[in-house]
């Protein structure tokens, strides 16, 4: 598997650290309550198909990257800097 870092270009999977579902970009309000925080920290859609997850280009520029990928085929569909995606999600 190869991932395209928006800064460095296409690189081997070994250069990246995996952080899981890109849900981490939507941190709830501290007072949002148990259920919301449980959902954020633990519960996952865990799709068999297209998913968005967070990778860090740890062996390269260090950027956090949102990767849109297919969990059935390992096909990588899109990559974007997490800082840009986060801004657009608000």
């Amino acid at each position: 598997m190869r991932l395209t870092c928006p800064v460095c270009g296409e690189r081997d999977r070994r250069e990246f650290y995996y952080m899981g579902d890109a849900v981490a970009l939507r941190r709830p309000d501290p007072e949002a309550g148990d259920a919301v925080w449980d959902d954020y920290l633990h519960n996952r859609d865990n799709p068999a198909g297209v998913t968005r997850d967070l990778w860090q280009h740890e062996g390269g520029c260090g950027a956090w990257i949102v990767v849109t990928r297919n969990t059935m085929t390992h096909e990588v569909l899109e990559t974007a800097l997490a800082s840009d995606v986060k801004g657009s999600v608000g």
Partner: protein
Amino acid sequence: MRFSGWKVIKEGLTGNRGWSAHWRDAQPKPEYDMVIIGGGGHGLSTAYYLAKNHGMTNIAVLEKGYLGGGNVGRNTTIVRANYFLQGNSEFYSHSLKLWEGLEEDLNYNVMHSQRGLINLFHSDGQRDAFARRGNMMVNQGDDAILLDRDGVRKHLPYLDFEQTRFPIYGGLYHPRGGTARHDAVAWGYARGASDRGVDLVQNCEVTGIDIENGVVKGVQTTRGAIRAKKVGIIVAGRSGQVAAMAGRRLPIESHILQAFVTEGLKPVIDHVISFGMGHFYISQSDKGGLVFGGDLDFYASYAQRGNLPMKEHVMEAGMTLMPMIGKAKVLRSWGGIMDMTPDGSPIIDKMEGIDGLYIDCGWNYGGFKAVPASGWCMAHLMATDRPHEVAAKYRLDRFRTGIGIMDEEGTGSQHNLH
């Protein structure tokens, strides 16, 4: 049909014409008392113990593919009871005791082989941690022996003890640990359940769960609707998709774990050996193949096949530990979908808020050894609506409340850390 030594001799002398199918390939009926979704190890053992321990025989196991085609037929077959935390230790202890009587109980040769498991350690700190774990195992009533370097050398003279990266200090020896033939475990439970009247329905994928006013009514399948008073979801790596049919999200991410087998060799490795520092473990099958594996590929996946980096990592770790295997040819590699929970421990519980719906999942990469006790406890839960005492801590709400988290590895209760 009963298996016995006499039967083998008789059939051998009379052309092997007297063997019959091990279970009935049942057609689905429109209604059952209980339906089990998933014909893996855990689904089949649940059905077996529902019939055997609770007299429930109007049951169907619905399997989307063929029986035993999931993780139960893809694992590296290690059976052990070397857990540390309360909640886990009594459960796996119970499971190992069931393993020890399983072949007699099922009248089926599952090739359970208590060849001993040795977990290696490589530093003073790790020795202390293993001594503590060993004491917990002994307190639980199981067996553990702390070996120093010479003690390990006696059992495993072929390891590279002097390697500079992780010199071997000793090992925690669990003599009752070992392996079993994975397929035979699925087949044995299938046969036992089928003989007691359970319908095993293959090529029957559950596509929906019918719930009315918070009460389960049955399931939709590719072979029609089936009504049921109680439904158990026991689908390992597919738990997320099936729970979604009931409108639920689970604390589960599905990850890929790979394994490898070499060509058949003469007996060289008598034990199960685990080399935690290198993420490598190995045993030798009765056919002679070296069966080994390592860690997850570490990204969410349903592909049932892994990538090259982890293959290389596992081979490198194997060569570090035992250079003697370097010339063995790898025949096959494969992957299975692991239902990973944040704390690395499983869930056997009711689905809160939906009467008659139960879930057994979150087995991570260690659910093969759990097959007997998981079935035993899930059957108890589904039949009596109360958790079995050895599985009482496997609650689903522990993640929400933070009470009763069982982070056996001590890596932190967070996805992607186990």
